[in-house]
C-alpha cells in the first residue's frame, strides 16, 4: 500500500473519533510544551551567562599569568617566553606590558590627573588590534600615547575633589578639559619614599596619540603609555623595580629578575584556534586563562543541568504516552472487524501495523507542533512578564540582558524527537496487536 493511501486511512480513522483524538493530541502537546519550557530555562540562563561573559572579554585573547617551574612555583614571563609564544601556529600577536608600580600624577597647565602608567610594546599592541583615535605612535623616549578616557578625567587642580563630580559620578561639564591634547606637553610626577620623607621627580612628556575607545562599553582606558626609557629614568630615581616608591622586603630578589613582563596576552587569529593554543600552553606549563576555557566549564555545567531538565520534561511526555497507548488500543479494538476484513482480502500485516504506527505518529507530530508553538508563546510571556513580576514583588533591578527562557533550534529538535519517539513507542504494542487479530474471529465479530 502506498504511503499516500496509508495516510488517507489515518486521516479517515482520526476523523472517526475526533474528541478522543483531540484529547490525546492535547495531552501530547501539553507534555511537549512542558518539556520545552522547562529545558528553555536552562538554555535561557546559559545564554544570559555566556553573553554576559563574552561581553566582558575578548574571545580570542588568552591571558598568560606565568610559567610553572618544576618545583611548582611560578615565574614571570621573559622575552624567551614571548619568542616561544609568538612561534605558536595561530597566534596573531603577543602583547606584553609592565605597569609602573606607583600611580603618577600627570598635569598640563592647571589641569591634573592621576593615572596608571603602562609600558607597552606598541608593534604587538597594534597587531593585536589596538587602534589610535588620533595622532600617532611614539617615536621618541619622551613621547606618550594616552587612553581614550584620560582627557575626560583631567580636572582643575585648584578645585576640591568633592566639588568636581556630579551626582552620577561624572566630572562636571565646566571642569572638563576642553583643549586639544595632541602635541601638548604634560608633566609626569613620580615619587620616592626615603623613610617617611616623600621625594618627587618631574619628567616632561609630550602627548602624540590618543587610543580608540575600548570596544566594550563598560571599559575605561585612562592609562598613559610611556616608553621603556621613561621607565628606566623612574627606576633610576626610585631605585626599585618598575618604579615602586618604597623599597620592600624581598625586592632585592625581584631586582635581579630583569626583562620580565607583568601582563602577557596572546591573541589568536580566530576563535577556533583558542582551544588548541590554550591546550598547548597548558601542556607547556604556562598558567593561562581564556574565556573559551571558562565557556567550556560553564557549558559543561549547563549541559548537565539541561539534560536533567529534559529528563524531567520527558516524564510529562511519558505520561501523555499513556493516553496515546489507551487511544490506540481502543482504536484497534473498535476496528478489529475492519482489520479482519482487510487481512482476509489481502492486506499485509506489515501494512496494518504501519497504518497504526502512522496514526500514533500523527498524534505525536500534531501534538509536538502544537506543543512547540505554545512553548514559544509561553517562553515569550515568561521573558516579558516574569521580570516585571519579580521587580514588582522583590523591588530588585534585574540585569538588562537576563533571559529566563530561550528556545534554540536544538531544543526543538531534541523535544520533537523525544515526543515522536515516545508516541511511536506507545503505539507499537497496539499496532502489533492489530496485526495479530484473528481473521475469522474478527469477521465473526468475536473481538
Amino acid at each position, binding site marked *: 500500500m502506498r504511503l499516500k493511501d496509508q495516510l488517507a486511512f489515518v486521516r479517515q480513522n482520526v476523523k472517526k473519533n475526533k474528541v478522543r483524538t483531540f484529547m490525546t493530541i492535547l495531552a501530547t502537546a501539553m507534555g511537549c510544551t512542558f518539556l520545552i519550557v522547562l529545558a528553555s530555562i536552562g538554555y535561557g540562563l546559559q545564554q544570559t551567562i555566556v553573553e554576559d561573559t563574552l561581553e566582558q572579554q575578548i574571545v580570542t585573547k588568552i591571558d598568560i599569568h606565568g610559567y610553572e617551574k618544576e618545583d611548582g612555583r611560578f615565574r614571570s614571563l621573559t622575552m624567551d617566553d614571548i619568542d616561544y609564544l609568538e612561534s605558536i601556529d595561530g597566534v596573531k600577536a603577543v602583547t606584553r606590558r609592565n605597569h609602573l608600580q606607583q600611580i603618577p600624577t600627570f598635569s598640563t597647565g592647571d589641569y591634573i590627573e592621576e593615572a596608571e602608567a603602562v609600558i607597552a610594546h606598541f608593534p604587538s599592541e597594534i597587531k593585536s588590534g589596538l587602534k589610535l583615535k588620533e595622532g600617532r605612535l611614539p617615536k621618541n623616549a619622551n613621547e606618550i600615547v594616552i587612553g581614550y578616557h584620560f582627557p575626560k578625567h583631567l580636572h582643575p587642580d585648584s578645585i576640591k575633589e568633592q566639588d568636581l563630580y556630579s551626582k552620577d559620578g561624572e566630572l562636571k561639564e565646566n571642569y572638563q578639559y576642553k583643549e586639544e591634547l595632541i602635541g601638548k606637553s604634560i608633566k609626569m610626577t613620580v615619587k620616592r619614599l626615603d623613610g617617611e620623607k616623600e621625594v618627587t621627580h618631574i619628567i616632561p612628556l609630550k602627548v602624540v596619540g590618543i587610543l580608540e575607545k575600548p570596544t566594550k562599553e563598560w571599559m575605561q582606558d585612562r592609562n598613559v603609555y610611556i616608553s621603556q626609557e621613561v621607565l628606566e629614568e623612574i627606576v633610576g630615581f626610585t631605585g626599585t623595580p618598575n618604579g615602586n616608591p618604597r623599597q620592600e622586603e624581598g625586592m632585592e630578589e625581584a631586582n635581579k629578575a630583569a626583562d620580565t613582563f607583568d601582563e602577557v596576552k596572546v591573541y589568536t587569529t580566530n576563535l577556533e584556534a583558542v582551544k588548541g593554543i590554550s591546550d598547548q600552553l597548558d601542556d607547556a606549563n604556562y598558567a593561562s586563562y581564556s574565556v573559551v576555557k571558562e565557556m567550556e566549564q560553564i557549558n559543561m555545567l549547563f549541559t548537565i543541568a539541561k539534560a536533567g531538565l529534559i529528563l524531567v520534561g520527558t516524564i510529562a511526555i511519558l505520561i501523555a504516552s499513556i493516553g496515546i497507548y489507551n487511544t490506540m488500543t481502543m482504536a484497534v479494538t473498535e476496528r478489529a472487524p475492519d482489520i479482519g476484513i482487510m487481512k*482476509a*482480502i*489481502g492486506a*499485509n*500485516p*506489515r501494512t496494518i501495523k504501519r497504518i497504526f504506527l502512522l496514526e500514533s505518529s500523527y498524534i505525536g507530530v500534531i501534538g509536538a507542533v502544537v506543543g512547540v508553538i505554545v512553548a514559544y508563546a509561553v517562553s515569550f510571556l515568561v521573558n516579558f512578564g516574569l521580570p516585571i513580576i519579580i521587580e514588582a514583588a522583590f523591588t530588585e533591578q534585574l540585569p538588562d540582558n537576563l533571559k529566563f527562557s530561550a528556545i534554540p533550534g536544538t531544543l526543538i529538535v531534541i523535544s520533537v524527537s523525544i515526543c515522536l519517539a515516545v508516541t511511536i513507542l506507545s503505539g507499537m504494542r497496539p499496532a502489533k496487536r492489530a496485526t495479530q487479530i484473528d*481473521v475469522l474471529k474478527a469477521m465473526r465479530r468475536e473481538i
Partner: protein
Amino acid sequence: MINVKQLSHSFTLGKKDPKTTLPVLKDISFNVKRGEIVSVIGKSGSGKSTLLNLISGFSQPTEGEIWIDGQQVTNFTEAEFADFRLSHLGFIFQSFQLIPSMTAYQNIELPLVSKGVNEYDRKQITIELLKKTGLINYQGHYPSELSGGQQQRVSIARALVLNPPIILADEPTGSLDSETEADLLQFIKQLNKERGITFLIITHDDAVAAIGNRTIAIKDGRLLEVGDAQ
C-alpha cells in the same frame, strides 16, 4: 489449480489442557482444475467452512498439504499468505464482510489500495466493476444503505477487482432471496465462462451446488464423494 492432500484439522478445546482436541476434517484429498466450478456441500458442522478457511489461509491445518497454483501454501507465513491472497484469491462471504465505514466504491477499491495501484487506474477499474455489477448509482452508498443483494454484488465486485484466477465463496447466496440468488449464480457462471475464473463454492444449497462442474460432499469431516454436479 487447487490440490488438497490428506488434509486434517482439529480444534483445540479450552486453554488449560491443550491435548483435548476436536477433529473437524479427516484426511481430505481432492483437486480443482483451472476454470472449474467446484461446489463443496455438506450439512452444518460437517467441516466445509473449515476446509475453505484452511484453503484461504485464515487458519493453519493440523496435517496435510494445500497447493494452489503450484505453490504449497501451507508453508506460508501470514505475510506471505496475505500477498498470495491479494494476487491469487478473491472472496465472497455469506455475510458480505464489507467495511461499514466505507462506501461501496471504497469497499470495491480496497484490494487495489492494498496492492498499491495508482489512483487513476483504481478509479478506472472500480468504475468499470460498478457498472458491470449495476451499482454505479450506488457507489457513494454505505453498506447499511444497500440491500442484501446489492451488498453481495459489492462483495463480488471487490473479489473481482484484482482479477484473481480463483474465487472462494462461502455460502454466497446464504443471505439472499431466491431471485437475487438466481441472478448471482448466473453472474458466477458468466464470470467462469468469460474470464475462466476457478470457483470453489461452499454451500448447503443443492441449487447452488448445481452450477458447479463437480461437487465434493463432506460429512462429519470426511470426504464422502467427488462427483459431477448433476
